[in-house]
Each structure stands twice: as structure tokens, then as C-alpha cells.
């Protein structure tokens, strides 16, 4: 019995370890290449850790490339998109969860349809739409496009969080003297914080790593985001892997910080919905 428990424990952790290594290896490689000096990059063959390490790639990315500008652009676009999408998705998700209205079925259906076809198909039309409005080569244009693409899924996500909160709570608040909005703000929102955090995180990472539209809509480097910037390290005859990887590591930082910030709400999970007991 005792032995069996130990074995199952060992198997458990072995499988977990395999999974974690598998998932983290690319990140490790990113880090490894970013600190490998150029002369060792091809010279040393495949090694887990270079014999000499350097931060020169980081220094040149920060000091001598446009990467800080791209980085700033990405932060602005991703953060703004995350905030707008979450606000819209919260309103829409609450509506879907709590109200019956004419056309609800069709609105939900159409929103689902938007998620069904590849975005490549609509690049040209979107470009044609945004160009005369002066929204190409602009961060605002990107925010609008990203928000439009993220709102449907984010709304469904928020709806599922609202569905988990009993209607009784709002009704109690409304009888206690709150109007619907006050009940929403003072009772429902505090209970949906994990959901809001999850939605914010989801939209932020989606906008942060988006390449296709950033590349097609914005051609000037002043409005490029960092995924586009990473491509700049690929030149006609060579790829500057060291700097590219260093930039990649730097690009991971905001997402990591963001998730550290919201993980408290994420792990708190959906226990907020458990009212009865």
C-alpha cells in the first residue's frame, strides 16, 4: 500500500516534469542563445550552456536598435486593447447572461461566426477600410482591429463567469435599494474579478503577440510593434539570432509581470460563485 503510494507519487511527478521540460525548453533555448556570444553561436555546436556568456546582445538591442520604440508601441496597443475589449466584453457578457432580448440568438450566432474563418481572408478588406480613415500606420488602427477580433471570444468568456454567479445576489441587492447598475458594480463586479483578470490576460497576450495585422497595416517603424520589430533582425543574407533572442526575452517580461500581477485572481478561481452550502 505504502509502496504503491510512493510509486504513484513518483510517476505523477515524473510525468509533470516531462511536461514542464517540454513546455519550457523553447524558452530556455531563447535565453541560452540570447547570452551566447556571436563567435560561439555556430562554433560550439549544440550545447546546453555556452562556455562563455555575454549580455552584449541585450546592450545593443536596447542601445542601438529601435526595439525600445517597438516595445513601447506594443505596450500601448496591448494594454489599450485589453482594457477596451474587457470593458466591452463585460457589458456584452452581462447582457447575454442576464437578459432575454429579441435577436439575442442571432447576435450570439454572428459573433461565433466571426471566430470561424482565418484572419488572412480579411486583411485586404480591413486595409481598404482603414486606409481612407487614416488608421493605417497608426496604433489606434491596431487597437480597433484587435478589439474587434477579441471582443466576441472575450464576451463568451465573461458570460460564463456571470452565469456562475446566482441571480439571487443581484435581486437581493435590487431589493436592498440598488438599481441594476449599482447592483452590478457593487455586487457582481467584485465577484467577477477572477473572470475580469482572466479576460484581461487573455486579450493582452493575444494583442501582444499578434504579427499579421501589425505587419500588414503598419509599414512605418514609428508605429511597429515588437513582433514586427523582431523580423528586423532577419536581413537578406543573415539572421542576427543573438539580438533577436535578446529582444524576445525582453518581450516576455511585460507578459510575465502582467500575469504575476493577476495570478492572485486567476488562482482564486470561480469559488466566488459558490454561495449556497
Amino acid at each position, binding site marked *: 500500500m505504502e509502496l504503491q503510494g510512493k510509486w504513484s507519487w513518483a510517476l505523477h511527478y515524473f510525468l509533470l516534469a516531462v511536461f514542464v521540460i517540454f513546455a519550457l525548453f523553447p524558452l530556455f533555448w531563447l535565453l541560452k542563445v540570447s547570452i551566447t556570444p556571436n563567435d560561439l553561436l555556430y562554433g560550439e555546436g549544440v550545447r546546453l550552456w555556452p562556455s562563455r556568456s555575454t549580455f552584449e546582445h541585450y546592450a545593443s538591442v536596447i542601445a542601438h536598435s529601435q526595439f525600445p520604440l517597438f516595445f513601447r508601441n506594443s505596450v500601448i496597443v496591448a494594454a489599450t486593447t485589453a482594457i477596451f475589449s474587457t470593458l466591452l466584453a463585460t457589458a456584452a457578457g452581462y447582457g447575454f447572461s442576464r437578459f432575454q432580448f429579441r435577436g439575442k440568438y442571432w447576435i450570439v450566432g454572428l459573433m461565433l461566426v466571426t471566430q470561424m474563418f482565418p484572419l488572412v481572408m480579411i486583411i485586404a478588406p480591413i486595409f481598404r477600410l482603414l486606409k481612407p480613415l487614416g488608421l493605417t500606420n497608426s496604433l489606434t488602427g491596431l487597437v480597433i482591429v484587435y478589439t474587434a477580433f477579441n471582443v466576441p471570444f472575450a464576451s463568451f468568456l465573461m458570460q460564463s463567469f456571470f452565469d456562475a454567479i*446566482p441571480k*439571487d*445576489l443581484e*435581486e*437581493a*441587492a*435590487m*431589493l*436592498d*435599494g*440598488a*438599481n441594476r447598475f*449599482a447592483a452590478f458594480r*457593487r*455586487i457582481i463586479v*467584485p*465577484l467577477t474579478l477572477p473572470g475580469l483578470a482572466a479576460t484581461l490576460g487573455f486579450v493582452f497576450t493575444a494583442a501582444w503577440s499578434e504579427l499579421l495585422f501589425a505587419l500588414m497595416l503598419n509599414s512605418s517603424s514609428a508605429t511597429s510593434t515588437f513582433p514586427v520589430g523582431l523580423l528586423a533582425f532577419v536581413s537578406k543574407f543573415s539572421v542576427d539570432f543573438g539580438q533577436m533572442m535578446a529582444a524576445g526575452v525582453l518581450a516576455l517580461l511585460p507578459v510575465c509581470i502582467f500575469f504575476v500581477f493577476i495570478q492572485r485572481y486567476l488562482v482564486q478561481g470561480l469559488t*466566488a460563485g*459558490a*454561495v*449556497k*452550502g
Partner: protein
Amino acid sequence: MAAIRIHDLCKSYGDSEVLRSINLDIEDGEFVVLVGPSGCGKSTLLRLIAGLEAITSGEIRIGDRVINDLAPKDRDVAMVFQSYALYPHMTVRENMSFSLKLRGMSKDRIEAAVQAAAEKLEIQGLMERKPRALSGGQRQRVAMGRAMVREPKAFLFDEPLSNLDARLREQMRYEIRKLQRDLGTTSIYVTHDQIEAMTMADRIVAMHEGIAQQIGTPADLYDNPANLFVAGFIGAPAMNFLDATLVPEPQTPGNASLSRVMVGRERLGTVQHTQAARQDGRVTVGIRPERIVVGAPSSSLATQIDLLEPTGLGTVLHLRLAGQRIKVFTTERLEVGVKDAVSIAIVSSDLLLFDPDSGVRLR
């Protein structure tokens, strides 16, 4: 505090009618219980009064104000939910002061009101806890406290005890009733439990299929049910119903139109003939299990025991009378077993007659 007047109230969802022409006058300070099986419309009626559902037609007044179109927050009623609906992210104190804060009451007055309610409910020790750290009974009290602090015109209770175990339910039943008497607040209480209805109500509204079948005091509904539904719903063990036939007695001078109530070949009793009965004399006879006497020596009916159910207080005997099942409740300690033959006696005046098709009471 206020009287509540409901006039010709109807509610439908699309084509399905949930409430049909409800008329109900509730006096100031009265405790009215809406009782019925699930789906009878009792909770819907409560929600209409609370303003959580829109009225299809009819009128509701609280005090002298028609409240049909008022938002829930402006109706000045407090509700205790089946799930208690305590705000999970707030402490007990915050839960109880929420409504007063929304009203913009001063901190001191809120504190005083919450303190007074907490003392009354004996929950002073729980004030800084979150709902999840409370037991079912404690949550129930907090929910009561949240309703009380506002001093509303009326309390609405939506099956508030159905999540509690039997012993606690009995205790809370008593406490809610006592509290309501002390406060004198008009109350409407929804339950599917007829014992709760009988023990707590000043008046009961027995509901079935969206219709108020009968409105009256607990004793009224018990002794004089208006129809088969009320007769069968109120009382435990439930009333016996037997298929019977009215056979006119031969007319003799000074003995005007009497009828024998026959179940198979057995004569249950003799009643005044009623014009309302069907031509063929078929009726449904109702008799309460505790009105039947077991082991009566003469003029009695022969039955056989199918099953015995001791309840401690007494025994429920399941008998077979002329092929039909009949329950008898007795507090006597009987020395009998299954398959034994026993004789029972029924007093004619205890027989209630119903129309077998419409269920309407004939006598």
C-alpha cells in the same frame, strides 16, 4: 408596515399562464403563507410583489400606493431568499448595512440599527465573518437580519428554510414567527411544506396550477377544504379518498332525503342528499386518517391490515376496505400485525364529499 392588496393579478410567459386572476387582501401585520406543490405559481406571485418580474395584468397595492410599475428598490419590501443570497465578498456586518448605506444613512445610525438587529438575532459574535464561514442556520439569521435592519413595509420569504435540516427548520420556524410577531411586519411566506404553512400562518393561500384554490386560516383549510386539491395537500398523513356511491334511502315521513355512502358493499355512513351530486351518484369521499376509530366493537367496517407505520407519536395503519386502500392514524398502542383483520368505525359527519370529476366539494 402596510396592508397589501392584490387585485385580479395575472402573469403569463408567452402563451403559458402562470398565475390566473389572483385576488388577495393581506392586512397590516398579517403573516400569510403561500403553499402549493412546485410549479403552482407561488414563487412567481412573490416575485411579482417584489418587483423582480413584470405583471401581465392586474394590480398590486402596498399601503395606498399602486406599485405595479415601481422598481424593486422603490417598493420598500425586504426578501429572504432560499439561497439566502448573502453577498459573499462582504462580512456579516457589511451585508446587513448594505441597504442602509445605499440609502445614505449616517454611520452612527447604521451601526445602531445593525447592532440592534444583531442582538435580536443573537449573531453579535459573527459580525466580522464572511458568509462562507457560517453554518446554514447562521446564514439564515444573517439573511433575516439584512431584511430587518431596513424596517421595510413587508417581508417576503421565498422558501427560506428548505436548505436546513429538519431540527433546525423546526427551530427557525418558531424564531421567524416570533420575530415577525414582535416586529409586527406584514409578511408573505412561500413554502411547499404544508406543516410550515399550518404552523406559521395567520392565513394560508393554497395554490395549484396558478390559481388560489382556497384562502383561509389553517383550521379552515384543514376542516373545510374547498376541493380535492386542498383536502389532499393539507394534512399529514394525507386525507383518505375513496370512490363511493350515494344511494338514496327510502323516503320515510320525518326523514327527508338522506343518502347512504356506499364503498363497494360497505356502508360508510348516511348523509343529507345533495343536489349537486352527479346523476349516477358517484362521489369521492374524503376522511381524515385520525377521525377513524380502530377496533370499534359494533356497527363497524371489516378491514385487513396491509402495513403498519409506527411514528412514535402513534401508528399509521394501511388498511384495505372493500378493495380500496385507506389509512388510519391512531395514538393507541395496538397489538396487531400485518394481515390481521381489524374493524373500524366512521362518524358520518366526518365524511367530506367531492365531485369525482371537478374535485369540487359537495358537502
